[in-house]
């Protein structure tokens, strides 16, 4: 396996995001806090092999979202996301 095989996209976390937010979010636009690029979550780079899920901007590669699940609690870090738009 090569590193490129580990890079998925936001489609891969559609089920997880639905579970956490109760809505379909892969088509939801999201603005990068680093470079300001606006892309649907499906168009962001997603790494699921880290401890937890890491979502990066496809343009500047800044971390936009981190999700770590524990047995009784889930941590969602949105520091790198300037805006999330729900339809």
């Amino acid at each position, binding site marked *: 396996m090569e590193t490129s095989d580990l890079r998925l996209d936001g489609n891969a976390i*559609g*089920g997880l995001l639905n579970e956490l937010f109760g809505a379909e979010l892969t088509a939801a636009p999201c603005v990068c806090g680093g470079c300001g690029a606006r892309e*649907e979550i499906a168009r962001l780079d997603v790494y699921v092999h880290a401890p937890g899920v890491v979502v990066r901007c496809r343009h500047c590669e800044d971390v936009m979202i981190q999700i770590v699940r524990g047995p009784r609690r889930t941590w969602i870090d949105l520091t790198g996301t300037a805006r999330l738009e729900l339809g």
Partner: protein
Amino acid sequence: MARAAVLGRLAWLAAEVAGAKWETPRVRTLELNVPGWADHLAGQHLDVRLTAEDGYQAQRSYSIASAPGTTLALTVERLDDGEVSPYLVDEAREGDGFEVRGPIGGYFVWEPGDPTPVLPVGGGSGVVPLMAMARSRARVGGTAPMRLLYSSRSLEDVIYRDELEALPGDGFEVVQTLTREQPAGWSGYSRRIDPELLAEVAWPVADEPKVFVCGSTRFVDAAADGLVGLGYDPRWIRTERFGATG
């Protein structure tokens, strides 16, 4: 898409295997009965959850192969070191049960009423959600010109081989490439997708087509980058990358 399909938390539902069909030596289609399942859109996927006797759970995503409005079907490729796909491909029998949740995704979806020319590009089992699009188009008599570009390693690895020979017509075309091994007399392409191949197969830029690319990360990047190189607007290209876990 319909608002009802966007809002609301998905529940895990009991699925029962209603039928199975080998597509290739590594790939099998499972038909599922899922009471309470809401109909899907072509291109969407679902999550499968297996629970062992000791309570251990494993979960993976699989694309939906069936057209909306027909019996729900998954087509799964066996990944030898996977936790879920070896069960689904080799073990699951009619009447067996597991859990599913879905349909999932509002981005990598195609509506058969959309008349825009469409170019589905699939590598290996990446053809599965694209087949849902082709089947959906055939089922409702969609008018969009659709050209499916499908890359496999060898003829033996071609999923839906018979159906892909029968479906073309009425504005649906299939262009295949076999990257590793070709049978005698093979009339399709014989190499990985590259810019020259895309230039020959893709709709003209002036058509402003819709593109759906699904496969491994490297396949998806090669196809998407090649199309952008031809002058395609990146916004026309929707991609879905398959993971290396199964």
